Structure formats: structure tokens, C-alpha cells
């Protein structure tokens, strides 16, 4: 496993241009690429997997009357591991074989999780794709009747509502959440403990409770009408503590040496936070915001209770009922009409798509993802550089900093 990590570090480096000070006549010295998996090993892996599959199939289907997909899968995985271990022991000593076995085991578990995710997303796409038309993004449901085909109308009202409500919720909860995190990790006042407990408790509030709270306070007591803004406030109640807690954890990861370094320069504390602590934790803060969005983007209760129902597009989040995607899906999937159910699946697919786009944009924004590959996270960012000339310096000094 140590090998594979080295592999990543070397392979991810941008293709180095020959250093400037090297004579042009000299060829570039050959660089070592540490590779933990060769083709023959991949073939070994595939072969063992196939052998295990055959064996388990034989036992399951031919010799005994067992059945059931999950049992089959578990038996296959166990058999696979045992066979893989035996094969590895033929060629390697105990340590190396164990290392490979653990690598394969962890890889297998990751594959299971990835497969589960792929199945969910795949199913949503499978159900929603056939009725998705481009005009789903440009028209609303105003001319759709009970007998219209599934492709009639679109989700514009819901899409506009979702984007505006989540956007407003972001405007409310990001400053509050990041501010709270700064208070918790940098100010460390006497109030720190109660505030942290409060934020953690808020984290557990279900979105329906937040929706009812806003309903009672904002709509009933304060005599306001249902609106996108009311939904956004309900979403903020869930989003703010998520952003605050995650952000705090991330700010705590910023090494104390940087804070001391700033203060020792005669720096003011708030400038230290703004110029050193927050930029250093930028990637993590963006992750916190993305987590906050994903926490609320699928909540249907706030729109159900505070948003009113609206099949026509409403651009103004401060006035009149406004739909959003989760509520759109919730409403239509319960209708007894087939075409409506199909539309619900299309809505679900668009919701997944929006989350995906948001995720990619956030990653690109934070600099941890670019079209050529994934970045290396918060800590390694410090050593990443744009010039290959430095990359060698930086990697050779990796241990010292």
C-alpha cells in the first residue's frame, strides 16, 4: 500500500519540462515511476476473481439448492480473498502477500460503496431519462392536464425555485456558519462550549421541524405569505449548523505555527484570520459549504409547508408561492397518473444533475479538481506548485516540513 501511494505522488505530477539550467545537449535523465500493479498482476486478479466465481457458481447452482444474490456475492468475495491469498503466497513472502490482500480487500469495499452509488444514480437516470426533453428546463406545468403525455410541460418552476431558495439559504448561512466557526476555533471565548453544543444540537434538527418553526413564527405570528424566502429560511436552519461544524473542524486543522507566525509579525488577529487562516483552509471551507448545500437541496418539507404550491414559474422568491425540485418530485410521484410519475423521475434526475454540477463547480473553484485529475487535499496543497522545477524540490523535502 505504501507503493501505491508513491505511485500516486509521482504519476500525478505534471510532466516536467527539462530544467532550464541543464545543457540542451544532455538528455533528460530517466525518471523512476513506482508502479505497484503491473499487467500480469492485473491478470492474476482477474483470473482469481473468475475462478472464485466459477467455484461459487458450481457450489451454489449445481451442488446445493442455495439461492439469493447477497449470499452469492458474499460467498464469492470470501472465496476470492482466500484464493487470492493462496496465489500471492506462491510468489511473495508473508508480509508482501498480506499487504496485497489488504489492498484488494479495501479496494473491494470501496468498489461496493461505489457500486451502490452508481446503482442509485443509474436507476434515477434510467427512470428519468426517457421523458427528459430540453424543454423541461424552459417551460413550467401551466398547460399540463391529466391526459397530457409525460413529456409535456417542464420543471422550470421547480428548478428556478430550488436554485433561488438554496442560493438565498447560502447567503444567510455561509456568513453565519463561517463566522460561528471562526468564533469557535479562533476566539475561544467562554461562550465557546455552549455555542458548540447549541450548534451540534441544531445539526440534529430534521428539516420538517425547521419548516414548522418558520411556518409558526414567520407565516402565522408575523402574518407573512408563503414564499421562496420562507423556504430559504427553513433551509438555513439546517444548513447553518452543518457549515459551522464542518468549517470549525477544518479551521482546527490549520497548523498553530501559522497563527504564531502571523502574530509574531505584529499581525492583528482579525487580519491573521482573514489572510492566513481562512485562505489556508479554503478547500475545506468550500467542502463545508458543499456539504451544507447537499444537506438541504433534497429537503421537500420546507417547500411543502412554507413555500405553497405553484405549478407556474415564480421568479420572485419574496412574493407568492414558489415550488422547488424535491417538493415537485414528492408531489408528482404520489399522483395516481402514470405520466405524472414519469415527470417526477425526470425531476429527480435533474436534481441529481444539479447537485453534481454544483459539486464539480465547487471543486474547480477550490482548486482541488481540474480536468487532468484530482487534487491532493488540504495539506498537500501547500506543496503543490505550478512549476515542475520546484516540484522536485518540494517532493524531496516532503518529510522536512
Amino acid at each position: 500500500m505504501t507503493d501505491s501511494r508513491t505511485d500516486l505522488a509521482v504519476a500525478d505530477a505534471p510532466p516536467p519540462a527539462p530544467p532550464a539550467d541543464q545543457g540542451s545537449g544532455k538528455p533528460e535523465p530517466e525518471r523512476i515511476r513506482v508502479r505497484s500493479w503491473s499487467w500480469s498482476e492485473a491478470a492474476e486478479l482477474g483470473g482469481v476473481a473468475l475462478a472464485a466465481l466459477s467455484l461459487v457458481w458450481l457450489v451454489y447452482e449445481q451442488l446445493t439448492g442455495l439461492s439469493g444474490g447477497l449470499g452469492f456475492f458474499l460467498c464469492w468475495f470470501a472465496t476470492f480473498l482466500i484464493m487470492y491469498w493462496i496465489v500471492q503466497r506462491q510468489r511473495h513472502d508473508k508480509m508482501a502477500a498480506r499487504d496485497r490482500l489488504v489492498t484488494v480487500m479495501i479496494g473491494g469495499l470501496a468498489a461496493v460503496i461505489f457500486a451502490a452509488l452508481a446503482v442509485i444514480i443509474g436507476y434515477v437516470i434510467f427512470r428519468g431519462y426517457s421523458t427528459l426533453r430540453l424543454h423541461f428546463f424552459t417551460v413550467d406545468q401551466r398547460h399540463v392536464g391529466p391526459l397530457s403525455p409525460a413529456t409535456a410541460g417542464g420543471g422550470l418552476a421547480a428548478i428556478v425555485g430550488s436554485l433561488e431558495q438554496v442560493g438565498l439559504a447560502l447567503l444567510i448561512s455561509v456568513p453565519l456558519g463561517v463566522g460561528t466557526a471562526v468564533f469557535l476555533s479562533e476566539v475561544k471565548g467562554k461562550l465557546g462550549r455552549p455555542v458548540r453544543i447549541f450548534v451540534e444540537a441544531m445539526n440534529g434538527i430534521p428539516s420538517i421541524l425547521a419548516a414548522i418553526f418558520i411556518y409558526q413564527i414567520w407565516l402565522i405570528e408575523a402574518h407573512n405569505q408563503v414564499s421562496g424566502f420562507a423556504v430559504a429560511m427553513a433551509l438555513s436552519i439546517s444548513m447553518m449548523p452543518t457549515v459551522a461544524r464542518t468549517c470549525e473542524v477544518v479551521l482546527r486543522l490549520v497548523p498553530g505555527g501559522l497563527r504564531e507566525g502571523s502574530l509574531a509579525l505584529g499581525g492583528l488577529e482579525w487580519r491573521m484570520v482573514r489572510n492566513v487562516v481562512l485562505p489556508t483552509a479554503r478547500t475545506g471551507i468550500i467542502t463545508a459549504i458543499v456539504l451544507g448545500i447537499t444537506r438541504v437541496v433534497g429537503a421537500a418539507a420546507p417547500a411543502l409547508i412554507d413555500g405553497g404550491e405553484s405549478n407556474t414559474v415564480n421568479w420572485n422568491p419574496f412574493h407568492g408561492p414558489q415550488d422547488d425540485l424535491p417538493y415537485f418530485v414528492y408531489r408528482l410521484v404520489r399522483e395516481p397518473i402514470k405520466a405524472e410519475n414519469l415527470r417526477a423521475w425526470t425531476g429527480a434526475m435533474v436534481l441529481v444533475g444539479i447537485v453534481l454540477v454544483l459539486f464539480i463547480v465547487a471543486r474547480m473553484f477550490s482548486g482541488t479538481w481540474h480536468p487532468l485529475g484530482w487534487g491532493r487535499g488540504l495539506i498537500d496543497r501547500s506543496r503543490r506548485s505550478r512549476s515542475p522545477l520546484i516540484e522536485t524540490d518540494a517532493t524531496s523535502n516532503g518529510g522536512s516540513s
Partner: protein
Amino acid sequence: MTAIDTTRPGSDAANKDGPSRLTAHGVHAWFGNHHVLADVNLDMTPLEVTALIGPSGCGKSTFLRLLNRMHELVPSATLAGHIELDEVDIYRGDLSATEVRRRIGMVFQKPNPFPAMSIAQNVLAGAKLGGIKLADRDATVERALTRAGLWNEVKNRLSMNGGALSGGQQQRLCIARALAIQPEVLLMDEPCSALDPTSTRRVEETIGEICSEVTVVIVTHNMQQAFRVSQQCAFFLATEGEPGHIVESGPTEKMFSEPDDQRTLDYVNGRFG
């Protein structure tokens, strides 16, 4: 020739000619109830480099951090005594902690360039963090990096990430960063302990060059280094269950050849134990 805007109140002192004198008088330090430093008296004279030597755990770093009010950042830390910068008490006078730290810079044992800033931004970080307006940023960057002996190595890649330098370069970047705000005193806590011999020599040369403008106080475990770079020397010692204190201080020549105390002679000759 100073790049720092002189219109800011309180920065006049930073622009007067010559380095400043730092004196410690009857200084004690505690972490909670743990008394780690007792009755330290030391005069850190301008134009000379003062070296603090002694076995680890005897309170050298603590003493250094007392000198620019970094000690108080540890929640349980307390202190007693007088520390004066040009006859002004840094703990009781009108000086704020920020002002003290601006005038008394510090370089840490482990290089800590800010990873989210470029090399140039790192050099200018002190001005930015302190809210100081700089007359000419480029000139400040060049001057500070030149004084720290790093200019030639990085002049073509000033916009590159500060964390992407070698350990020795990072440490010199931290020295440049400290020098850029023109402190009167520079405190260095084992600045070379993580460096290779070449980088160490560069840092020592840097110290030799800057001591005409800044009062330098350096902690080092390397006796040859103390002998090479310093003119004054103080030997700290903490015996079992006792707080650290200065056994002897004086000109480095004397401390290394004929000290008054036998323990000093043993320590500088590596016979301590």
C-alpha cells in the same frame, strides 16, 4: 531608506537610526504552576549578536517568547519581571502586544511560510497582517529577500507558492518575512536545527550581515555556531525540580575560553552530564 509608511502613529520608533537595546530584569515564567524560568537578567546589546545556549528544556524558547510577548498566547502562561525595549517596559508601558511583536520579530525553529501565499506575498505578509501601507512593494520584497540571502534563488519565481521551496529556502523566506517589516530586534529560535550545512552557513552569513541594523538574539544547540555568530552569550540551565536560570553570561570569547563557572566550561566543551 525605509519602505514603511511613517504616517502611522507609533511607528516612528521603527524608523530611528540603529538597532535597539533589549534588557531583561528579574524575569520569571510559569506554565500553570510549573515554574520554568527564574530571575533571568540579561542585556541584549545592539550591534551584537546574543546567543542563548543550554540543554533542552531549560527555558530558552520560553525566554525568547517572553521577549516579544508570544508567551502570553499559551493560555496557562504567566510571567514576572521587567523587559525593556529601549528603556520602555514592553508589558507595562503603552505598547500593545501587536506593536511589540512588530518591533521585535521572530523566526521559528520550523520554517512556517504561509501555504496559501506566494513567495512575494509571504515577504509582504507582515505589512498586510499588520495593516501597514507600503510605499514600494517590489522594492521591499527585493530588499528583504536580498538581506536574507534568498533573492538570487527566487527572483524569477516570486509568484510561486511559498511552501514549494526547500527547507533551507523556506527558513530564509521566513527570515526575509521577518526583516521586511524592519524590526529593531530579531529573535531566532534554533533557526538552523532543521537545515543542511550549506543552508546553515547561508543563514549564519545572513545573521552576520543584518546585525548592523537589527539586534539579534539566537537560540542554538550548536556550540560552533554560537561561537561563530555571537559576540555575547548566555548559558541557561535547569536542574531537576528547579526552574531554569542563567548560570553565566558575558562575551562569547570569554564564555568559551575561561568562563567563571565550571558548568559553563563543561557545557561548551560538550562534557556536560
